[in-house]
């Protein structure tokens, strides 16, 4: 901004002193802006636009200066995820031929993150989950060969789309289960969480046809203390947190998922005042420092599990201790950048602003954007 102002100030000086000497503005032509090259601080903010639900969008911003870079339309309850290599923004969505009526068609769309143009559009079964854009409702395989899409009719199933060959491959029924947790070590495997507390693991072949499915032991208790489905991931290890604040470390790499560890998020002293996790995209993990970040609110009670973050807590995965608590700016969604010293970006669900925090050596608020988005709830970085 200050550079720009300086230029303007110079311009004004010229004008005031030598206005007659200024040449006319030369005739201009219109063109299309070239998107600035991607960098780890480019932000993708998915906005369901509930008040105009057929017209969802992803806002794309530069996370350093918060300049708005463009948008991608996402249709009706689009489910959105960056490809594993961040070259594409994936969007599973539905359209009606006459806006809110007529014939329905559904597609997996792939938009280039280089220029925001549509690269591929693959017809899919017309039952993608018309859900809030949770992490895990659409997921690429680690090699970007396949894309998995959560369906709901409300019966649950998962579509396997062969992104590489641009074709729908198969559909796996997953009754009573939800969310897609791809394995990092096996490119043809993903797990899903089931209401009976088990995890179901599906392995498919190179054509995208299921070859095996196996159910884990009961890993959590959905009646007494449900796990949030949005998890944070280091390779095959997923970190979940429960409504009451129990961290679950679950390995989804094998034929069946395994609970490796679980422990309460914070000491008795930390939790005094009824601190609980809350929000939508409420958890993130840094694989380098092995720190877990969770949005927390005090006075937790039945029904408070979507309350915005009053604080962000950092948990050291080695010592299992809360090592820092910081004001949470009403976070309802957060993500870490893909850097060795990651920044944390969070979305304020009350004021619709994006906040940038340093995390190394410790969390520190850096900057905040103007308001952006109407009904946003998922934030991703390139």
């Amino acid at each position: 901004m200050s550079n720009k102002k300086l230029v303007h100030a110079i311009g004004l000086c010229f004008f005031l002193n030598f206005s007659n000497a200024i040449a006319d503005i030369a005739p201009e032509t219109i063109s299309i802006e070239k998107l600035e090259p991607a960098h780890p601080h480019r932000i993708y903010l998915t906005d369901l636009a509930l008040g105009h639900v057929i017209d969802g969008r992803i806002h794309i911003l530069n996370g350093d200066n918060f300049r708005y870079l463009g948008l991608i339309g996402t249709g009706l309850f689009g489910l959105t995820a960056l490809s594993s290599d961040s070259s594409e923004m994936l969007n599973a969505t539905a359209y009606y031929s006459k806006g809110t009526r007529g014939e329905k068609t559904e597609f997996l769309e792939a938009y280039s993150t280089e220029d925001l143009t549509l690269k591929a559009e693959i017809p899919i079964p017309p039952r993608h989950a018309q859900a809030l854009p949770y992490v895990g409702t659409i997921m690429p395989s680690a090699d970007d060969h396949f894309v998995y899409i959560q369906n709901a009719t409300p019966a649950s199933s998962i579509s396997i789309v062969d992104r590489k060959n641009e074709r729908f491959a198969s559909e796996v029924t997953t009754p009573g289960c939800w969310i897609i947790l791809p394995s990092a070590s096996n490119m043809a495997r993903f797990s899903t969480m089931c209401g009976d507390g088990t995890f179901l693991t599906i392995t498919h072949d190179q054509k995208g046809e299921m070859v095996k499915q196996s159910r884990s032991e009961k890993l959590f208790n959905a009646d007494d203390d449900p796990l949030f489905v949005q998890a944070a991931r280091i390779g095959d290890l997923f970190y979940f947190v429960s409504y009451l604040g129990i961290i679950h470390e679950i390995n989804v790499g094998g034929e069946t998922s395994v609970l490796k560890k679980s422990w309460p998020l914070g000491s008795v002293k930390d939790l005094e005042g009824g601190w609980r996790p809350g929000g939508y995209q409420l958890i993130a993990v840094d694989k380098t420092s092995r720190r877990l970040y969770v949005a927390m609110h005090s006075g937790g009670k039945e029904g408070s599990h979507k309350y915005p973050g009053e604080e962000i807590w950092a948990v050291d995965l080695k010592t299992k201790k809360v090592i820092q608590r910081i004001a949470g700016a009403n976070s309802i969604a957060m993500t870490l950048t893909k850097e060795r010293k990651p920044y944390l970006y969070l979305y304020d669900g009350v004021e619709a602003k994006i906040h940038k925090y340093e995390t190394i050596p410790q969390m520190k608020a850096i900057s905040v954007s103007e308001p952006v988005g109407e009904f946003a709830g998922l934030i991703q970085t390139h």
Partner: protein
Amino acid sequence: MEWLDNFFEKKTRSIAQNSSRRGALARIAKYFVGTAFVLPVLPFDRSSANAAADSEDFDPLDDQRCEYWRYCALDGHLCTCCGGSITTCPPGSSASTVSWIGTCENPEDGKHYIVSYYDCCGVSSCGRCYCNENIGEKPAYRMGLHNDINWCMGNESEVYHCTVSIVLGTASDKA
């Protein structure tokens, strides 16, 4: 993992107390208020003209407010602000064929009722009186208790318009 069992027992006991022994009007002073008549509302915006926030100076039986007792697990636009009523979809829309369930305490009789939330469908989203209440709400692996999904799924037009609250009966096990 004995610590876990202890932790759990203590915690769940306190949840049970909180959720079933609340006084008749205890739910009135709510932490979040998300009512707004016009502009798109952020998921947790409390700044709208009609928000009473933490105050208690509003009518607890005003069915155009998020605090109205039946809305205890409602995430969406209130049909009462969109041309419908608590139990009717606005003219021109159609009712969803599936629904989710909440259990809400009626301050008038102190009883808990099973409430079925149906979405109204097929008309451009109403965009008024957005509420986000989550008593008893669970993730989508317990689909019937989940509200972060469009229950117009399965209708001829799945376009979401607003949400109604139908009493199915008392929750006798919670009385």
